[in-house]
């Protein structure tokens, strides 16, 4: 990664142009051609620096609620249970966070409230595990942006 790549990353994590030829506009800002910036962004995506370019949604404005759930599962069983949880496309994040409380599997669900209840009931039925259910009350901060330059 060179300086130009870093400049590109810093710019497109803030916002990506909503114009007919967005890469041409970005290229003009960086002082490079449309074809060069396309190649560079492709490379950045291939190497995993950029996951995707698209809309980052406010799920609440779309009628969805968010919830954090922890399951009391042993480390031996965690992979298997995580696979069950991952089947639901409404599950956005799912991590193993081992700690002495025994609540080792932590995941978030974003969906309409009735759908969240349905998913929780299904997971309960399929895993029979003790759970912590932690609905979101207030958002103080959301959004993963990093200092690049």
């Amino acid at each position, binding site marked *: 990664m060179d300086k130009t790549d870093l400049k590109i990353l810093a710019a497109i994590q803030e916002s990506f142009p909503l114009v007919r030829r967005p890469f041409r506009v970005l290229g003009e800002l960086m002082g490079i051609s449309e074809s060069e910036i396309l190649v560079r962004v492709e490379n950045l995506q291939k190497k995993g*620096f950029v996951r995707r370019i698209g809309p*980052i949604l*406010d799920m609440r404005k779309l009628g969805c609620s968010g919830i954090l759930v922890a399951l009391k599962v042993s480390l031996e069983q965690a992979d298997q249970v995580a696979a069950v949880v991952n089947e639901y496309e409404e599950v956005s994040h799912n991590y193993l966070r081992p700690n002495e409380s025994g609540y080792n599997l932590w*995941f978030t669900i974003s969906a309409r409230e009735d759908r969240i209840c349905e998913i929780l009931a299904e997971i309960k039925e399929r895993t029979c595990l003790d759970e912590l*259910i932690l609905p979101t009350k*207030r958002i103080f901060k959301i959004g993963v942006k*990093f200092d690049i330059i």
Partner: protein
Amino acid sequence: MIDSLDFSLLRAAQNGIELTEKPYLLLGEELGISDEEVIKRLKLMTEQGIIRRFAATMGHRALGIVANAMVAWKVAPQDLERVGTILASSQEVTHCYERELAHNWPYNLYTVIHSRSKEDCLRIAKELSDATSVEEYKVLFSEKEYKKTSARI
């Protein structure tokens, strides 16, 4: 609120645009609308706040930000506003949510800290504890990432 075409557009766009000269033209073709229409609708939804940002999502592991800790804080109800505001203002805190209490689980404020190492995360959590005078907190490191996507519709 948004109409069904907006909904389809968001569903298509959330997978990420194609890296090509006219990505919105491609997106529109799937839905039978022009790129101008795609752009107009995406802009409007951004103005309305339905789209927080139209931007690149970063793979933070590739950027060397490999440690991710969730810190659960036990905060007195009357202190939530103050503590939440302080925690949210920290550069390393990417998420900060108040959550409902659960049985036998006294924590009501949750932050996610991203940093370069576990030690860094612990140091940051300690600094935040000092800054807020909240002494009861639990640091939960992620040992394995089973899934990480954006919330989707």
